[in-house]
């Protein structure tokens, strides 16, 4: 019990032995709340731009320019109705959902299989080599591939279609998605599968009946992470989806920004609508996602 207490508060233990336990406890509590206060101030400073996006979305451009405070004086939905009536925002949104949805599906299929192999067959030569290839894919300057791919896809008539972007997104997501899957599969005890082998179960069957049902939360985390990567991507979408009918949100906002750079109300409304799915999805799986991403990046 004493040890557990020490572990949880390495710095907070008071050295003054003369004070009673009660005052020590109270001092500790005050110190802890002071730290919370300091952290909240830091959050307000560092997250100020985020609060600004959502609050400015409810202010008219005139109000945004005339007052320094970001608290809406006369909250209005004008910016949102402008986006719906005068721009193709919801069309961009649909494109984004299609591209991100299908890109995620393909990434999950490829990375799930590879992640399982990396976790269970890591002693095989081909697997350790593949692991190295993934490292290179991760650092690959994608612009180098985009130059020939643009020419290839243009000749194949795939520019301004979702296929081009979906295929490229899949490769872009592979390294992180595979490493995240590998980490989650590693956490599923091998003993379960090995018991099944002894009973004469094939590798494939054990994968289907034992590993897949257990990897639910991990798969959810990878799905959402890859979805966000696709949903947020700008460069590839801007090269391959130039037609307003296939444009995704980031490209649409960039186009709007270059034409009406000072229409802050509409820009902030578009930015906040674009961010809502991102933030909600993130909150759902933040715990798993953070674990997986850190493991993926650092252990490789």
């Amino acid at each position, binding site marked *: 019990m004493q040890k557990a207490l020490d572990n949880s508060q*390495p710095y*907070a233990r008071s050295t003054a032995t003369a004070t009673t336990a009660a005052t020590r406890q109270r001092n500790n509590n005050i110190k802890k709340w002071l*730290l*919370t206060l300091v*952290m909240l101030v*830091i959050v307000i400073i*560092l*997250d100020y*731009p*985020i609060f600004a*996006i959502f609050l400015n979305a409810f202010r008219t451009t005139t109000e945004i320019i005339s007052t*320094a405070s970001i608290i809406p004086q006369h909250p209005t939905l004008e910016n949102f109705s402008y986006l719906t009536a005068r721009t193709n925002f919801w069309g961009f949104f649909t494109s984004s959902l299609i591209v991100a949805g299908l890109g995620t599906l393909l990434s999950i*299929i*490829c990375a799930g*299989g590879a992640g399982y*192999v990396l976790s269970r067959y890591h002693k095989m030569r081909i*697997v350790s080599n593949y692991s*190295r*290839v993934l490292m290179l*894919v991760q650092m*690959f300057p994608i*612009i*180098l*591939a985009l*130059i*020939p*791919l*643009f*020419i*290839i896809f*243009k000749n194949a008539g795939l520019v301004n279609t979702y296929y081009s972007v979906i*295929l*490229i997104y*899949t*490769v872009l997501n592979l390294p992180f998605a*595979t490493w995240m899957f590998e980490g989650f599969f590693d956490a599923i005890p*091998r*003993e379960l599968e090995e018991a099944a*082998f*002894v009973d004469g179960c094939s*590798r*494939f069957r054990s*994968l289907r009946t034992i590993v897949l049902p257990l990897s639910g939360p991990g798969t959810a985390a990878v799905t959402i992470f890859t979805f966000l990567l696709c*949903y*947020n991507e*700008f*460069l590839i979408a801007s090269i391959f989806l130039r037609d307003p009918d296939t444009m995704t*949100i980031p490209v649409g*906002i960039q186009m709007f*920004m270059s034409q009406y750079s000072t229409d802050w109300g509409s*820009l902030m409304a578009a*930015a906040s609508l*674009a*961010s809502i799915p991102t*933030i909600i999805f993130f909150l759902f799986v933040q715990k798993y996602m953070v*674990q997986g*991403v*850190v493991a993926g*990046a*650092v252990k490789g």
Partner: protein
Amino acid sequence: MSVTPVTEQTSNLRIRQQPDKVAKRRIDMLPFLLLAPSILIICIIELYPLLTALVYSFQNGSLLSSGTFVGLQNYLATFSDPEFQGSVLFSAIFAIFSVVGSYLLGLGLALLLVQNFPLRGLIRVLLIIPWILSSIVTIVVWRWMIQDQHGTVNIVLSWFHLGPIFFLSDSRWAVVSVIVIKIWRSFPFMMISLIAALQTIDNNLYEAARIDGADRWASFRSVTFPGIRNISIILWILMTIWSVNDFETPFLLTQGGPSNATESLMILAYKDTFARNTVGAGAAVAFVSLIILMLLAILMMRFRNRD
């Protein structure tokens, strides 16, 4: 950490011998089957274009015609081009300051967040959000923050009778702005990785340092930093790679301007190819970037293998 893992390992070995024997008789096709889609798509989307781009870099083609073979001319022209030299310099400055800035901010926050205090989980989540927002959303709000007249930053500066600073039209301030925004987008990743590393440090070491009379700085130097040293080196290299590779932050903020002050290698390769229609020059710049990134990746693999 004492008895159980050992027995687990031995039982592991015993059971695993059986499937291995079976595997010798009949080759297990599952790993090949599961790796096939990934390998196929990597070959189509990266390997084949990589080889094609290598050919392009020795030709004087455009997006419409493949052009003729010109030998090393694209590379020689690239190396002597002041615009290329400027972009190498900007990429280096951008990478170094982004890494240092995001690491220090991330480390500071990580050290605070491993302590025990109310609302810690909520605060941690709020501090991760800058990292998950898309580049375009980040740039929209930061462009608003650093506007010349009504920008938040210039308003705050005017309280101290400073400014106004024209962040996006002054070359030096444009570089500073891109770096600050990159730090803002990257510090949460540093923070969560370092929190994970800090949590693996044995608390008995802090106890021992305290008994030896170490103050906070001494215990940071002798306990905390050695504990996160390896992961820090990997994070520095990884973040350098990501910064060199980052197209979106500088491009969306300034398009490489004013007068090419924030033009990175990626932006130069993009402009050469898609704006100036000189595919050979673009491919040459992209290849030089690949070599720089490869060197960094090799460095990182060395450190990983050493652990």
